[in-house]
């Protein structure tokens, strides 16, 4: 494990989130596209040095490629190519730094930090526990929903409906809502939340 990897994995989640916030603000102040591109390359290098691997780097950037390409072309056409490079390099840097923090921080530590940060807002009705849980659920269920979407797409493709967006979106929404109901019941059952009678009035529980 490299020194950077060890440092990132040992550093407290709060320090990493603070560093990310400072870095995020800092890159907005950079106006030279060459410096920004260098920073993006440095972020990619840090990604590798932190032991996150080239695969993870690809997973972070691949879904964004079309958007980045479109952004680059639009900015280049409407403003100039230097600005286009600056904007794209900035987004890549921010995404890689955020992914670096997420991948090197256990969700439990991240959630504990979020709960600590939100503690002063309890008096305004904010429930840090619930926000932390929501954060955890997002991390947990993004890949699950992706898998559900793939199952629906395959099922619809088998019926000859593979390319119709509604054929994917509507069943996916129904499945996600059904799962959300079950997840809520499971959280209640496991955490002992005092919410009797939150009956899920669904035939599916039979």
């Amino acid at each position: 494990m490299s020194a950077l990897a060890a440092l990132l994995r040992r550093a407290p989640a709060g320090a990493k989130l603070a560093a990310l916030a400072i870095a995020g603000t800092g890159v907005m102040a950079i106006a030279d596209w060459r410096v920004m591109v260098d920073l993006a390359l440095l972020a990619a290098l840090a990604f590798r040095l932190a032991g996150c691997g080239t695969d993870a780097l690809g997973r972070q950037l691949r879904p964004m490629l079309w958007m980045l390409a479109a952004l680059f072309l639009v900015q280049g056409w409407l403003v100039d190519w230097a600005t286009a490079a600056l904007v794209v390099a900035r987004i890549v840097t921010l995404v890689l730094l955020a992914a670096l923090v997420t991948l090197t921080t256990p969700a439990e530590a991240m959630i504990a930090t979020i709960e600590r940060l939100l503690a002063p807002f309890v008096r305004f009705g904010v429930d840090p526990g619930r926000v932390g849980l929501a954060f955890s659920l997002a991390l947990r269920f993004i890949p699950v929903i992706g898998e559900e979407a793939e199952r629906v797409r395959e099922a619809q493709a088998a019926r000859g409906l593979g390319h119709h967006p509604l054929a994917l979106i509507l069943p996916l929404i129904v499945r996600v809502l059904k799962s959300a109901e079950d997840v809520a019941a499971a959280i209640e059952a496991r955490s002992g939340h005092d919410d009797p009678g939150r009956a899920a009035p669904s035939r599916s529980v039979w």
Partner: protein
Amino acid sequence: MIHSSLQLPRPGLQSAAGSTSVPLPAAPSPQASGAGRIEISAVSHRFTDTPVLRDITVTLTERRIGIIGANGSGKSTFARLLNGLLVPDRGRVVVDGLDTARDIKAVRRKVGFVFQNPDNQIVFPTVAEDLAFGLKGLGLGRAERAEMVTQMLARFGLEALADQSAHKLSGGQKQLLAIAGVLITKPACVVFDEPTTALDLRNTRHIAGVIAALSETAIVVTHDLDLISGFDRVLVFDAGRIVADDTPARAIAEYLRRMQ
């Protein structure tokens, strides 16, 4: 023909890749002693205008209770009454003297619930983090929580998967994690809602072995008749009523007769 799955060999769980074998839990929780008595008195429940349970009165005291019935017969709804996930429209459910309508927190500490789809029950990204979730509200210190997670990982042979993404587990491993996530809070009774529905034969047998090895009371809703054939008592549901309440052999025979 009904076979007792508990007499069958109980191989370890296989990972998605088929390379990781997870042994049976080494030892049950020493604190668990089983819920003494669950009383269901004159319970009826309906969803909108549809009656789902009709005037059910039954007392559960056995350590292994199976619940079978056709789809839509009300068995899963009945199971959800037992730890207060549902409160009946009419009647009472009392667990060791605690009414699910009033003492919901205490009831949920006593009665854990394992859902049919473990994907919906696992709420944290990694195995160890998910196990720790159930302990959060118990007022335990960080070190104590970590110790309990370590013990539970060891009990279920999940140590090697502790930091693995829950998403990447096989179906059997997910169900095992879901069970461990419930057991870590040391409930006296665990209700299982069709725990083997989505599993292959090997993992079904393994989960059957896990349930058989529990020191906790187990109430199992299932369509898998092998799973409950060695139980103490089996209830058969039909159209919202208990139509048979007997030994497994007699209750299953009645169920099969009704299914013809």
